[in-house]
């Protein structure tokens, strides 16, 4: 077998359909995904990272972002992976939701994460949350519920109805 070198299009740097169960899409760190067929979007091990779940229930479209850093401005590399950053990730997610039929006016947001896991790192969790609130406000998307801060890791699932199920490391679970 021979492997030559056709110039193929490179994939987008955020892979948005990793690890799929039937009806479940896993979203990794610095990734985002949009679902239109009622799938549940899951992301695990949120520490200082922030998860932003957006839904347009009328259009039955929802999307989840797992961002690591507040702003693209903090990085030396520009826009290589927008989902790594809260601000660029939210903008990209809204755009992707729109392209999948969502209306910006109907979107609502739920956010989780942004914990202060360590004293060693300068409050990256709270800064992530703050940036998420600013970016969503600027985009005119209301935050209807949030579970952020504290010093606890979280795992989240965004259901098709927009409900964000947040499970903390100690097993405590609540739905936003």
């Amino acid at each position, binding site marked *: *077998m*021979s*492997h*030559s*070198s*056709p*110039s*193929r299009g*490179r*994939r987008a740097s955020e*892979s948005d359909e*990793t*690890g*799929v*169960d039937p009806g479940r899409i*896993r979203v*990794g*760190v*610095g990734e985002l995904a949009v679902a239109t067929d009622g799938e549940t979007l899951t992301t*695990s*091990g*949120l*520490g*200082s*990272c922030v998860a932003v779940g957006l839904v347009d229930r009328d259009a039955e479209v929802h999307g989840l972002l797992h961002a*690591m*850093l507040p702003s693209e401005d*903090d*990085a*030396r*590399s520009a826009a*290589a*992976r927008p989902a*790594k950053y809260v601000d660029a990730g939210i903008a990209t997610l809204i755009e992707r939701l729109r392209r999948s039929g969502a209306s910006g006016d109907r979107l609502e947001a739920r956010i989780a994460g942004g*914990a202060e*896991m*360590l*004293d*060693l*790192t*300068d409050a*990256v*969790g709270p800064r*992530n949350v703050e940036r998420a609130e600013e970016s969503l406000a600027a985009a005119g998307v209301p935050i209807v519920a949030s579970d952020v801060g504290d010093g*606890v*890791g*979280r*795992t989240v699932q965004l259901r098709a109805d927009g409900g964000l199920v947040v499970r903390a*490391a100690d097993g405590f679970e609540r739905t936003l």
Partner: protein
Amino acid sequence: MRVDVRALGACNRLSERGAKQAADALSELTGTDLAVEVTGASVASGEDLAEAFAGRESIGVSVGLRGGLEGEAVLAFDADNVDALLSLLPGGQSMGHSAVSEVGNIALGGFLDGWANYLGTAIDMTPPRYFEADGAAVLPDGALAGDGVFLFESRLDATTTDLDFSIYMLPDSGQFRDLIVGKTAAAAAPGTEAAAAGGSDGDVGGPAVPYESLSTFASLAKRGSANAADNIAMMTGLETTVDVSRLRFVPLADVPAEVGVEPHAGTVFELQGKPSGYLAILFEESSAATIAEAMLPMEPDEPLGDMAENALCELGNVMTSGFIDGWANVLGTSIAHSPPEFVHDIGSATISPLVAKLSQRQDYGFVIDAAIRTEGVEARCDVYALPDERELADALAQLSEP
């Protein structure tokens, strides 16, 4: 001869892309969804690899590589997963070896496509050879001989069944060196494929290290672990060994997935000096409790309560001093560390702030797989060494200057 650290990054991204193609090819063949879980490049000595693979049984296929890249690539399944694999394949159990060979051929073909694309050259595969192997015999020929071999490893995960497998590729080092050095030159020219794949920052003239120093990475881990073991023995009076299987070079964004969602306990340190960065020593909960109990004069009231926390902090302290003293010796620099910060939470959540912090400047980190054995008690831990890659590259480069 200098290698841009980002060339290693490019290789890593490439094995990731190759692994994704392998996963796609297999998903199609089996009708099962497969995801690339972890991809990493590692540098390890033959001796370390032999230890790391001891006791594992594997089946799989190997192919020889000719043309643009010479060497060997192997796709291996854990022998325990063979039945699950066969049940997914067209023809099922009756197909046996030929089914495994076919899967291997398709997946390795996908994997090598990614590399051929990047290198802009054709890579020919010899026909697949089926094998059943004990321990490190699964690795490509020659992996055990060198004292600092590059190994590219990808793990794929089937979400519905137990079908993890690994791909190991051992490129011929002379030719591989020429390729990545060649790519480094290309990476310096913006707009080339290599620049796009290798450096996301477009910053020409990034950290470069002499090729010969790359195997120093392997010795960093080894040297550090010997010191760490000595320090634990001194502190506890218990004879202790810390075995390091290898040092892996992984994309930072993959580090949380690598730690996983199981609860972990351990300690995190900030490093100051050359290089600066972070170091985290993480144990799964049961290992953390075991090692803490071994260090305490009496059984603690609760497995991971205050007493265990103190013990793990102290353990972290001496291990970290051991590691960084070893590194500072090898690098001829000085490195200091902060007091330990205890962590006990979802594994990936504990490490994510460190990854976030370093991600502002770089895309890769190092993971040292280690096991601590202290008089009859064995606890596995992972040491996540997350140095500033520019500072590390500078230190390595200075080492080789006459």
